């Protein structure tokens, strides 16, 4: 019940296309869902985050869509660029029961072709 399942494992998108990465969870006590971007040799960097009382959050080309009833959330990258090529992790947190601990998905390696 503590898992966050992420798909796909890898994704190839043409420049200008839309990249979509999906995550699913079981624990309804999760209260915060961040997405992290990781470049090779670097640590995860927070990209965008959402709380379960909101169905969508947009920051620039990045949008999180959140479906509370389906217990799913997804990251959409509009107008994908070669510089977006990185590994993306979704995560979830249960602040009330487990404090700040983040539970990560398995990661998606995104490659944007020019």
């Amino acid at each position: 019940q503590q898992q966050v399942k992420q798909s796909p494992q890898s994704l190839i998108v043409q420049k200008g296309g839309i990249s979509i990465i999906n995550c699913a969870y079981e624990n309804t006590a999760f209260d915060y869902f961040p997405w992290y971007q990781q470049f090779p040799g670097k640590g995860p960097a927070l990209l965008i985050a959402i709380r379960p009382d909101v169905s969508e959050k947009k920051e620039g080309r990045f949008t999180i869509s959140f479906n509370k009833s389906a217990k799913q959330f997804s990251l959409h990258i509009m107008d994908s660029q070669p510089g977006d090529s990185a590994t993306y992790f979704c995560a979830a947190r249960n602040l009330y029961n487990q404090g700040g601990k983040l539970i990560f998905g398995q990661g998606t390696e995104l490659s944007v072709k020019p």
Partner: protein
Amino acid sequence: EPEVTQTPSHQVTQMGQEVILRCVPISNHLYFYWYRQILGQKVEFLVSFYNNEISEKSEIFDDQFSVERPDGSNFTLKIRSTKLEDSAMYFCASSVRENQPQHFGDGTRLSIL
């Protein structure tokens, strides 16, 4: 922009030896975390630390692991007797408050021979 810094970037240690990984969290942050990432796998939570105490730890964080904030700036992870399976990338993270975003360092790659 302030950042979390970790040293060393790469540590090679013989199995059975002790290793200390060091982190300097962002200066006004109060909550500190260690995560690890075995090659090709997901990032896994190890421990959280606040007010000089462990607030949460995972099953991975057994008696071989310990954390310490020896002074006002450093946060360390010690592995007492390293095993081959401890080989991984170890990330330190910090946040202003427990409910605020966590900022990660670039990690220490630990290789156990």
